[in-house]
């Protein structure tokens, strides 16, 4: 092994792929090179959540994760399609509540809200605020985001 590029193989949104990466590249840099622009580096310090992706079922900050460490993992990003129109309940709820202005932070909020609802199907407002405290929305759409998570929780319960 060396500082040179390496071939890694992993599952990206359900599809097996191979990519050549250098050890110093992070996950966001790799995804953007692969044409996926939903995870974006904003603060670069793991604080804002704009670069959220899921690795083997765990939400991580793509800006603080070396791309080579995706080797042999399953990665889900905001581009992962759901259902007939491609959107899951969280995305539908965000659209319905207008839980964004510029939309830059939205992929991270959607992914983290999905994680929250998977772990806690009926979160209180305090629990939503606490769980999403690692995601920043500079347009300050927080009230709509919280309403969207509550709506998504109701939609998920109605479905199941």
């Amino acid at each position, binding site marked *: 092994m060396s*500082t040179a590029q390496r071939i890694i193989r992993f599952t990206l949104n359900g599809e097996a792929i191979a990519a050549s990466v250098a*050890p110093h590249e992070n996950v966001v840099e790799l995804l953007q090179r692969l044409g996926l622009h939903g995870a974006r580096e904003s603060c670069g310090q793991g604080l804002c*959540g704009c670069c*959220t992706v899921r690795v083997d079922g765990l939400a991580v900050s793509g*800006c*603080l994760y*070396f791309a080579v460490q995706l080797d042999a993992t399953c990665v889900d990003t905001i581009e992962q399609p759901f259902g007939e129109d491609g959107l899951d309940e969280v995305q539908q709820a965000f659209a319905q509540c207008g839980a964004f202005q510029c939309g830059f932070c939205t992929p991270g909020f959607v992914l983290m809200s999905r994680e929250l609802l998977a772990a806690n199907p009926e979160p209180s407002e305090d629990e939503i605020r*606490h769980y999403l405290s*690692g*995601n920043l929305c500079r347009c300050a759409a927080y009230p709509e985001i919280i309403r969207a998570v509550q709506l998504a929780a109701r939609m998920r319960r109605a479905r199941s």
Partner: protein
Amino acid sequence: MTPFELIEPRTLDEALRLLDPADPGVRPAGGCTALMLMMKAGMLVPTRLVSLRRIEPRYRDIVASDDAITIGANASLASIEHSARVRDELPALARTLRTLANVRVRNVATLGGNLAHADPHMDLPPLLAALDASVQVQGRGSSRYASIEQLISGYYETTLAGDELIVAVRIPKRAARGCAYRKVTTRSADDWPALGIAVALEREGERVRAARVVLGAAVDRPTRLLAAEAALQGTRLDETSARRAADAAADEARPSEDARGSAAYKRELIRVHVRRTLLEAWCDEPVGAVRQ
């Protein structure tokens, strides 16, 4: 980021062999969250990272025995936060983890990496010091235990040799121990704290048999406040005795001045928050712990 080599050994022995105490460019890596921040800032420019994440899975285990809970150094902070054992027997640790960084960082960052990083602003070192934790350190063919105070020797400094790795943290169980940690942020809620206060109180009936009061963030390493501890010994903990101990803590502490507050301001924060942390620790009710 300057290019480097990243190696992922499959065993602890192999990881230890890949370290090179003579070459400061060779660094072990846990979850890599703090490490990547330092590399992005140019504070750390390694030539080789030895990642520990693929070594034997037992180094992630959380094991309870009659007298201790032992947490593997590779355990993620989230796995400790969600461990039923930790929640039952060390609720203050589970509570502290809930406000440490955020969900994504806790999913990745490891206990060993957190301690080896030795950032003075971190929450776990003072808390683990209050809980009298000992850190198991493995070298090539040698093993030793260090207290948190022996491990962390200064600002981002530890006593770990270049070819030693933290493998586990052992937290002794104590009957009738109450514990609390308070993080005091003076700017935004998610900023590094101006101070962290950890308290562990061992009760004997209605009195304090032994106390540990540890200050973090305002000093360059987790620091026990011995005068405050002495003031608590044998007392019945109430508002008056908590206030007396907090005054002793404020008198003996030597907080540093920085963007989060002047030394005088932090001294007053210590006075207020040691008192509150003592009262919280006294009311802490570990679910599974034996009460006298």
